[in-house]
């Protein structure tokens, strides 16, 4: 019989079943707490408003009463498809732009040799910690002076390269790619951009996927910037439009709770679907660069 020291001691100190049960109770309770608001939102969005004002409230849905009426009513009240289109437009365009320019710059910093590389890189990294909120005021003013207020330009152009963070993430990722491939492509006479596009970009796809997912979610959920630089009903994005539903003084009407929940669920469900599809990218990608620095 072979016993390793660790194994021997490990089995002796095995936690009692009661403790394990207790641990499971705690982590499950917390999972229920974290998921409850999302459940509650979807449940309330699918029930008729008369049911929502009944006391005591029912935790479980009344299956026979479920309806899409709230969604329908909200569609008639507000230009939801237009807000959805705006959010999509901003999310997709900015994500593509960030992935492209972020990879390009990340590649240069990871694999190319040029004068000033380290200096420029550290200047960029130093400013990474600047809180973005404090730049809202001057950015708003400059957008106004460009005449971009309440247009797509205002939503699309500022920080279109995804910022230093996008570059840093791609740089970390590209460090790991084999340099021999670049070398041999260069011997074959490939141009620098061709090397990036044909050799590096295909290999960097997993990194790009991580960046794309986080960029899309971030842009979709972005709130303060579209709130400040848009004013017309047609230019709002979903989160900004949603925030208006709860304030009657902005919309001139009191929106029933069920419809507000329908709007919230409509904005949240695409992100939840993306999360469930790309789970492993979220759970792994989030720590790229942060832990390994």
């Amino acid at each position, binding site marked *: 019989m072979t016993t390793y*020291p*660790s194994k021997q*001691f*490990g089995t002796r100190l095995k*936690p009692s079943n009661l403790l394990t049960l207790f641990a499971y109770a*705690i982590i499950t309770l917390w*999972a229920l707490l*974290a*998921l409850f*608001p999302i459940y*509650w*939102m979807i449940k309330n969005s699918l029930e008729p408003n008369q049911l*929502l004002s009944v006391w*005591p*409230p029912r935790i479980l849905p009344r299956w026979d009463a479920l309806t899409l009426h709230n969604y329908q009513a909200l569609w008639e009240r507000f230009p939801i498809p237009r807000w959805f289109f705006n959010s999509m437009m901003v999310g997709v365009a900015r994500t593509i732009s960030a992935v492209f*320019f972020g990879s*390009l*710059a990340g*590649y*240069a910093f990871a694999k*190319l*040799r040029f004068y000033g*590389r380290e200096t*420029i890189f550290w200047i960029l990294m130093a*400013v990474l910690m*600047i*809180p973005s*909120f*404090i*730049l*809202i*005021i001057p*950015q*708003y*003013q*400059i957008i106004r002076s460009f005449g971009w207020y309440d247009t797509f330009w205002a939503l699309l152009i500022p920080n*279109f*390269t995804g910022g*230093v963070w996008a570059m840093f993430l791609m740089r970390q990722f590209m460090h790991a790619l084999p*340099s021999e491939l670049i070398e041999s492509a*260069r*011997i074959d006479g490939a141009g620098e951009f061709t090397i*990036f596009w044909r050799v590096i970009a295909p290999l960097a796809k997993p990194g790009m996927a991580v960046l794309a997912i986080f960029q899309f979610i971030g842009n*979709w959920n972005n*709130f*303060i910037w579209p709130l*400040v630089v848009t004013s017309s009903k047609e230019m709002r994005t979903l989160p900004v439009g949603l*925030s208006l*539903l709860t304030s009657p003084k902005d919309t001139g009407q009191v929106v029933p*709770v069920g419809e*507000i*929940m329908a*709007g919230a669920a409509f*904005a949240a469900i695409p*992100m939840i679907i993306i*999360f469930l599809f790309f789970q492993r990218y*979220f*759970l792994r990608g989030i720590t790229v660069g*942060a*832990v390994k620095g």
Partner: protein
Amino acid sequence: MTYGKLTNYDTTSMHGSNRAVARPPDPRENRLKAHFRKARREIARSNKWAYVFIAPLLIDFIVFTVYMIGRVLAMSFQDVNYGTSTWVGLKHYDFILHDAQFWNAMQNTLVYTLATVPLGILLALALSELIYRRSTRIQVFYKSAYYLPSVVSTVVLSIVWMWIYQPFNGILNYFGELLGAAPVNWLGNPSYALGAIIVMSVLGGVGVSVVFITAAMGGIPHTLYDAARIDGAGEWVRFWRVTVPLLRPTLLYLSVVGFIGNFQVFEQIYVMTQGGPGYPGATETVGYLIYSAAFTSMNLGRAAAESVVLFLAILIFSVLQFRMFASETEF
């Protein structure tokens, strides 16, 4: 010819390889000249395409970050009206210094951040420790459940929590009633409103920290635990003496990033309470104050000055945290 091109490309580091071929310094040349000569040589050897590749990022960065930092500083010394701005010196800073509303907002922001960040990290640490011993599949399940609220926009979460906190129909008061508590107007009562927002933020944010901490736990060598076990350390001691010290870089990262992010808290306040209830508002934060100074009072100069003060506060806290954590790194 192709060989010459190869030197454009870096296998090791920027400076390492060409030190050897550098000419010995000529005593007749002064230092500056030598520096320029070296720079010229480096530029000649540089891969020119690299500059093209980083140009979009640099342009974006210079226009929308560096220039904007200068702008916000300049604006904080000006009275800004549409099209015109006049220099007013320290007027806005003087105003802020004596503004009870601003200090109330700063206090609320501090309370919010000092509650949200440590509470969130401690909870995440406990939950990570509890789920880390489970099988991979169970771990992924719980991590996903905790993480899910983070992919949903804060505006959406705020709207839902408003409904949960409702004084008359809210589910929270229903649970309270089951436990025999009187109904509470969570967001309408100055003593509860900020706490209610803190609870919501902690619940929504813990998942991200759990993912970070469990990832770092995976990097701790198992032999350390075996050694501790042989020395007779119990679970509790192993957690505090092995796990936590080795997680310090991750905890520092989470703490610094958490402080920077939470100091700017805005969306929850904008949607749920608009700074209220009461005057000065019980949930008014500096972020919200900046927003209302700029877009309700149309005083961009004051908003810029408040932004600068917020930045200084964040900077001080970041430095403090680095020093605090650094001084303890002796193991």
